[in-house]
């Protein structure tokens, strides 16, 4: 692949979602893809802008889209599921509503012709597989049982996600290629409480507990996700969930890109697997070496 793919890490990938950032960059390097971070990108506004002011909720992603277009990027990867949803949602609305596009041009004083295509982490990884990553997966994970967790933002949104909203399957090809066994389970598209993590922690504990329990019932060794928000609810708060008298759970929650990174033989630390709250290094232990 010679054309560079734009990269929009989003705010949480510098903080809570660091391992997602690390693993994406490492994986891109192995696959030989030129990831170019959009210069001077800004926050997508997330749930906050969306909740309080819908102009702002469009204007913030608009600026980033305009920057990407200006910087000559035809495709932009937004690995954070929330950012992906905001950016792509905005792109779809702008394409459908010229009046809104005009208004945004006025507000931001930036032109945008609508040429940027936003990729989710799943689309990106499937793209890498198309481009030959499969051959480079030299360390399959020896039948690691995984529960692919799509949550809300990688499953729903008719014009945003290109997958079956109730029975999504976008991650399966990559997981199977990485040597995992995908377990059938019930909570692949249930909500974890998402953006209300800090302000309605109680709800998040309930919902995340149910997700973890169902994955355990399905005998999963790990939950695989593509969303830093889900990740922080399921991983970072797993101890809190236990402390609240639920569970107890001890289930690693890993990013799709980490799984692929491991299968590609990248050292777990480089992928950020040591940064998890629930020990995820045990997933790395399942790496096997395939004779070339």
């Amino acid at each position: 692949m010679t054309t560079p793919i734009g990269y929009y890490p989003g705010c949480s990938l510098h903080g809570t979602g660091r391992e997602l950032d690390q693993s994406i960059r490492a994986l891109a390097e192995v696959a030989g893809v030129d990831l170019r971070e959009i210069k001077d990108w800004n926050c997508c506004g997330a749930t906050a802008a969306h909740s309080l002011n819908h102009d702002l909720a469009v204007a913030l992603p608009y600026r980033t889209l305009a920057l990407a277009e200006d910087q000559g990027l035809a495709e932009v990867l937004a690995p954070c599921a929330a950012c992906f949803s905001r950016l792509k949602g905005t792109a779809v609305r702008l394409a459908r509503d010229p009046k809104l596009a005009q208004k945004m041009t006025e507000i931001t004083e930036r032109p945008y012709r609508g040429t940027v295509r936003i990729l989710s982490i799943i689309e990106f990884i499937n793209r890498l597989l198309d481009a030959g990553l499969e051959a480079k997966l030299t360390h399959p994970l020896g039948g690691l049982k995984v529960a692919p967790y799509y949550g809300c933002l990688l499953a729903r949104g008719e014009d945003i996600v290109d997958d079956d909203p109730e029975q999504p399957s976008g991650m399966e090809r990559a997981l199977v290629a990485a040597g995992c066994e995908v377990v059938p389970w019930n909570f692949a598209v249930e909500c974890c409480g998402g953006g209300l993590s800090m302000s309605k922690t109680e709800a998040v504990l309930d919902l995340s507990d149910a997700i973890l329990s169902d994955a355990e019932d399905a005998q999963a060794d790990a939950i695989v996700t593509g969303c830093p928000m889900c990740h922080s609810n399921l991983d970072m708060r797993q101890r809190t969930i236990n402390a609240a008298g639920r569970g107890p759970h001890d289930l690693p929650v890993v990013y799709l890109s980490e799984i692929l990174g491991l299968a590609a033989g990248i050292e777990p630390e480089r992928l950020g697997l040591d940064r998890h709250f629930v020990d995820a290094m045990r997933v790395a232990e399942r790496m096997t070496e395939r004779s070339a």
Partner: protein
Amino acid sequence: MARVGVFICHCGENIGRTVDCAAVAKAAEAFPGVVKSVDYKYMCSDPGQQMIKDAIRDERLTGVVVGACSPRMHEPTFRRAAFEAGLNPYLLEMANLREHCSWVHEDRPVATEKAIDLMRVMVEKVKKNAELRPIRVPVEPTALVIGGGIAGIQAALDIAGGGKKVILVERSPSLGGHMARLSETFPTLDCSQCILTPRMVEAANHPNITLMTYSEVTKVDGFIGNFEVTVRQKARYVDPEKCTGCGACFEKCPAKKIPSEFDAALGNRTAIYRPFPQAVPNKPVIDAEHCIMLTKGKCGICAKVCPTGAIKYDDKDREVIVKVGAIVVATGFELWDHSAYGEYGAGRLEDVINGFQFERLASASGPTTGEIRRPSDGRIAESVVFIQCCGSRDPKRGVPYCSKICCMYTAKHAILYRHKVHHGRAVVFYMDVRAGGKGYDEFVRRAIETEGAEYIRGRVSRIYRRKDGRLVVKGADTLAGRPVEIVADMVVLADAIVPQPGASRLAQMLGVSYDEYGFYSEAHPKLRPVETAKAGVFLAGACQAPKDIPESVAQASAAAAKVLGLFSQPELEREPIVAKVNEVTCVHCRACIQACPYGAIEDKEIKDSKGNLIRTVACVNEGECQGCGTCVAVCRSGSIDLDGFTDEEVLAEIAALE
């Protein structure tokens, strides 16, 4: 030269009070071509009619205009009089001086002036009128009934009972349709097979009925009174003449694990099989797709055990062409496939079943001999959730309409379940209960009030299977304003009623129109509910819209009455108001063919004497044309015209208003 007679009727005082009839007659006398113009008190009376007849003979009239009441009132009267006097009835026209003039205006001079105008218009038209002859179409007094469910059986029996021949075509190996699969019927809970099977036998034994099971209609040509229908009889591999129905073959057949269509895949059948014990005809067929002999070339057990040598492995499909005068379509319905609902398990949860599957579970002749056992592990279901409107009233992913019968059969299911599992819990999720019908609402109330079914108003959002194998049903109780979660052993989805797959293909063959879902369209929603826009094709049962058994039977009998009416005369006489193509100027753009609401226009190939194709043009089938004239208005080159309302006639009318 035109010789037109004008007759102005006073209609007692009705016209005469506001229209100066004598003045109108006087004015009309001056119209070009008018040779006689008179007014009279009651034109429709015997002396009035006689005046017209006399004038036709004495004055050698070539056209008559009667200025009187609405033609909707007396046009047949005056046209008959003209006919009796030797004038082609279509050379008589009426001007509406009463309803459209004297009764709606008070000012005498103004009304008189208008009456003169109205007369002028009709005189100009009648001068252009052509002699038309009624169209006579011979009728083949045999009916074809497509579909051997309860509607088709009823229609066939009624037509046969009326003394006419019937050919009854059924796609599956046996008559009976869906009704044969039901356990009990609402609201009386009488046994479905007990009331159906005598009818099936009667149909099979009736001397006027020819049964063609395991057969499909593949082509329909012709028109009312004169259809030519091609029926493909699928190879049965069993000679029905020799077979005695002893059953030795299917008892010994080694291919035993084929999901039974009749049992909605809850039970199995063999490769040589009869769908169910009471099947009519009670003779097995071989399912070529699964037969080991027919697929792999070895086995032959059934042939060995057959005492009469009825097995024919070299049997072939056969095409038969039948001539019929009328067709009754009774192809019924199918259930919507709920695998479109991912949130209900996308069809992959074994214990989430549809209504037919529940019928088979509840049926004493079913795979569980009537015990409500869940498909996954055969355990008695201790708790069952019934969900209504599954796919119905769901414009997004299902169908927007109400499937009509689900409220009732769900109530029936809940009652049957509670009769069979006394300690079991029956929960029904519903949006509205639609129980209009004799004894219907009482039946639903009984389910709730005395049979212990729990009715919850709300839809279900999600069904999933727990680790212990039970199903979690997440619904809402909108009356209480809260979510509800029920743990169940089995969920029964009241899937929407949809037309049979292939309904639209058959409709296209028949030239019958259908709605966006594939239900066949009746000719008029109020007044012609069993006819189609295609003359000679009638509808019965759920192929037209979701219907329950009594409605299907009623419509079937109505269709039979229509057929018998049609067959009561050897020939069909039709008003000759039909379209005609000018084959010289037609360029075959097919606009008329596409626009015709009746599919009455066809391609016609014009060939030279050696049979070489010169050109193709449009051609109107007089038997099918209903005379609306829509084709005429879409023809850009003016190559079609409508008898009775020709371009020339209409132009003459417009010109008369200058």
